[in-house]
């Protein structure tokens, strides 16, 4: 049984390394920051998960196996958070997306929530009172 588990473990670790390679290629080859975020936060975390799974199958203490699983779960949550804040900040700062025209300089980014600016810039100048 043990040799079979060892082979499966080695295969999983190799697959994980392949996903890491895919993530790096994506980071270097994809055209804009939003695409690159896909490569990094999805492919790399799948690679990390496969490596972690391969390591769990190797003989060892139960406590360290649980620790590896927890590290992977924390890495997943971290990647989701980082991906979201980086993409949102890029959008807000006006980083152009591939195949899409750059937003005009006075565009109100999604989620900015700056309602008064919209009313003030395009609304009538008369005193229509407070909304």
């Amino acid at each position, binding site marked *: 049984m043990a040799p079979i588990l060892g082979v499966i473990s080695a295969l999983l670790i190799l697959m994980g390394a392949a996903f*890491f390679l895919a993530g790096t290629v994506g980071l*270097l080859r994809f055209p804009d920051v939003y695409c690159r975020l896909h490569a990094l936060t999805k492919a790399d975390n799948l690679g990390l998960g496969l490596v972690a799974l391969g390591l769990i199958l190797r003989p060892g203490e139960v406590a360290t196996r649980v620790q590896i699983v927890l590290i992977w779960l924390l890495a997943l949550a971290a990647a989701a958070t*980082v991906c979201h804040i*980086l993409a949102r*900040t890029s959008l807000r700062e006006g980083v152009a997306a591939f195949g899409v025209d*750059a937003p005009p300089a006075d565009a109100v980014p999604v989620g900015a929530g700056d309602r008064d600016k919209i009313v003030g810039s395009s609304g009538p100048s008369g005193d229509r009172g407070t909304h």
Partner: protein
Amino acid sequence: MNDFLLGVAAFLVLNVAAGLVRVARGPSPADRMLAAQLFGTAGVAILLLLAEATGEPALRDTALVFVLLAVVLSVAFVKRGWVRGPGTRPEKE
């Protein structure tokens, strides 16, 4: 088997090194930040592999710290460290 684990770890180090090209090219600050994210994820995998190969359990705790630092680093970056450069909208006023 240990040689295999160390070989995979070395391969991941090469991946991180290739990701540094993106830091040099940019163009936007977020692109440069992505390489730090790659270093976080791949670094965790490297440390887990090294912990298994060398039987050094402290390296697993180091991997845990790596994950936490990657999040703190990115949050600090978007809140404080975003430097406006080519590829981003010029600052208003």
